[in-house]
């Protein structure tokens, strides 16, 4: 009996360890299948191109399926001009970075892909990206000074190596439900609105039976949500030298308190509802009268039938005291893998995507606001039923989205801690002070 016991124990121990080992692999597997399904579509579209001629194909990784049709069109122009074929792979944002990191670790990054300010430093530090500095210098079609300098700088590692070419910029604006405004007898938001007008309207637009709320903010969507008001009121998230947190600043606390107070008063749905549902989903369902959203959401919102029939866009309110109307902005970059088998072809694609011609087309098709100076005029015509000009007006006073080398680590921490402020378990000031302390120690160990 004794022997039998020992053997089974060992067998089970091995089974247990095996299962523990597996869990990490499973996590990865899920990601790839999620990505794969969406790639299928892209594959089909490129198949037609493949039949046209021989040669290899560049894989291009992106995370936003809304942009796929437009980018496919632009890239087919590229294929026509150069004979280099491309294939777009879509992986949703949540899994995109896991996919990219796994690719970088295993030496199989896509040839060309989107880069983001959250993650660039990691890839730059370990030389995962193709150095474009000299290529840009020799290029005839690419003019880096036509792009906003702050976006160029995000992708300029240590101020020297240019590792990505700007693709677009995004700004934030206010979406409102005209039908609800009419019903409440309030005039539509415009450039005269301050955050106090906003609060007042939110109050009037809230129905006591919980069927309709004045506004909502997705707590994890910092760029499109609470960040803007924090900067309006004179606060900031991270200092310019990226060494200290701004959560102890008076303006930061004031901005966040303003929003959490409105939630406590019941002018926004309870935190649990916002946590389970996207803010745009609540807006599309006619549950909330106002949301703040980024320009990247246009394909989603503008193609929704309810939104088309009832809603429009205005600039964000400004702060009465400071007079500031700030939009946090960010911009993606086109980067290439350092060990791609086709560096020349990859570079040509990036060069093309950054050229005036492609940038113009990107705006014209309404894909996103292009980063290239003077190419955005036609963008407002992409969805004529909406006042897209609000997004361009927001470009007047912009602040780059807060980032540092370890952006992901401290943004996750901020989101976690702010939960207590949103649902009122702690005072907003207390939470902010706590965040400041933790964030400073995180920044110190970067």
């Amino acid at each position: 009996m004794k022997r039998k016991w020992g053997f089974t124990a060992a067998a089970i121990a091995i089974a247990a360890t095996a299962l523990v080992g597996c869990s990490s692999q499973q996590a990865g597997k899920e990601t790839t299948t999620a990505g794969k399904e969406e790639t299928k579509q892209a594959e089909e579209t490129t198949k037609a191109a493949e039949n046209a001629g021989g040669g290899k194909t560049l894989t291009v990784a992106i995370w936003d399926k809304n942009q796929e049709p437009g980018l496919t069109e632009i890239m087919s122009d590229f294929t026509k001009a150069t004979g280099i074929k491309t294939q777009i792979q879509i992986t949703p944002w949540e899994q995109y970075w896991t996919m990219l990191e796994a690719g970088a670790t295993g030496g199989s990054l896509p040839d060309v892909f989107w880069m983001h300010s959250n993650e660039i430093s990691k890839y730059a530090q370990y030389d995962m990206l193709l150095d474009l500095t000299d290529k840009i210098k020799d290029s005839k079609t690419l003019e880096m000074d036509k792009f906003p300098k702050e976006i160029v700088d995000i992708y300029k590692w240590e101020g020297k190596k240019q590792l990505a070419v700007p693709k677009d910029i995004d700004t934030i604006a206010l979406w409102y439900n005209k039908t609800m405004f009419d019903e409440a007898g309030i005039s539509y938001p415009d450039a005269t609105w301050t955050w106090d007008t906003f609060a007042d309207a939110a109050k009037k637009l809230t129905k006591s039976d919980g069927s309709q709320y004045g506004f909502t903010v997705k707590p994890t969507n910092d760029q499109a949500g609470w960040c803007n008001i924090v900067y309006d009121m004179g606060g900031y998230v991270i200092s310019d030298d990226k060494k200290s947190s701004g959560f102890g600043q008076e303006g930061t606390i004031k901005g966040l308190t303003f929003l959490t107070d409105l939630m406590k008063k019941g002018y926004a749905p309870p935190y649990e509802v916002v946590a389970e549902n996207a803010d745009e989903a609540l807006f599309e369902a006619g549950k909330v009268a106002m949301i703040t959203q980024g320009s990247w959401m246009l394909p989603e919102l503008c193609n929704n039938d309810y939104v088309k029939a009832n809603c429009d866009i205005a600039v964000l309110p400004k702060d009465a005291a400071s007079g500031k109307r700030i939009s946090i902005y960010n911009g993606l970059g086109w980067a290439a893998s350092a060990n791609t088998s086709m560096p020349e072809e990859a570079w040509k694609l990036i060069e093309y995507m950054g050229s005036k011609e492609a940038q113009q087309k990107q705006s014209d098709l309404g894909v996103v606001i292009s980063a290239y100076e003077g190419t955005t005029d036609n963008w407002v015509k992409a969805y004529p039923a909406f006042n897209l000009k609000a997004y361009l007006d927001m470009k007047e006073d912009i602040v780059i989205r807060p980032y540092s080398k370890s952006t992901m680590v401290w943004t996750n921490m901020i989101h976690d801690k702010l939960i207590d402020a949103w649902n009122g378990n702690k005072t907003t000031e207390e939470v902010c002070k706590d965040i400041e302390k933790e964030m400073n120690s995180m920044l110190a160990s970067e």
Partner: protein
Amino acid sequence: MNIKIKGSRRERSEFLWGWLFLLPTMAGLIILNIIPIIQTVYQSFFKTGAFGRGNVFVGLQNYEKLFTDSLVWQALMNTFKYALVEVPFSIVIALLLAVLMDGKIRGKSAWRTIYFLPMVAAPAAVAMVWRWLYNSEFGLFNHLLNSLGLSSVNWISNPSTAYISVAVVGIWSIIGYNMVLFIAGLKEIPRDYYEASQIDGAGGVKQFFYITLPLISPTMFFVAVTRIIGAMQVFDSIYMMMDKSNPALVKTQSLVYLFYRYSFVEGNKGYGSSIVLLLLVVILLITVIQMVCQKKWVNYS
């Protein structure tokens, strides 16, 4: 060399063929399981850089952090709470269903298929469907409650009950699998016992407690051991059903979820490794305790 002298030709050939047949399984185990386990242990002593490069040896620092990290202990508690709901219910319900399926009822195979279906469906898809059923604003459950005049429930965002909602999905998905194992166990019980007891005047309930339950205990033991291991590793349903901003997440996230977040979202693989090793030790302990206790209740007749 010894083997060559000792063993006969036949013994040698058996030895060789034996290992040859074992080879595919062994290779799989070593490459996919044993080596990653060793690497995980190794990694847990490092502050890992991105892409598996730039690792810095930090000794026991990750473990020191582990013992002071309240999130880890909360996650361990959450994992236990989840297992305490999932395992007993999935076993009891599955056993009752198995006994029903083993009796004389119409459309047996149709019922079996229905109960086994959740096992065939992709876990991620299952979790997505349940997420929408549970949704506090647009979900079917709250819709039904509201139409009965009751108020809505925050199924997956109430910190004190969300783990139960997640466990219900776990129970629902695993019942069919447990049931099939139990049916196999029931088939092993000789029919004579039931006939004999019937003559002695035992009813269905008595038969269940005095014949079925003791004789199915080996299967029960197997199911309990594997289910506890499975439940302790819950990840996919939590990952799919709960948003990062969910206020109940801290009180629901499991150790594997925390491991995923640290390792893959925040890129701290060294610390993630130490968390998953903690889980390994906990599972080993529970399994050893089960092995010791089985003598008291498992009946190998």
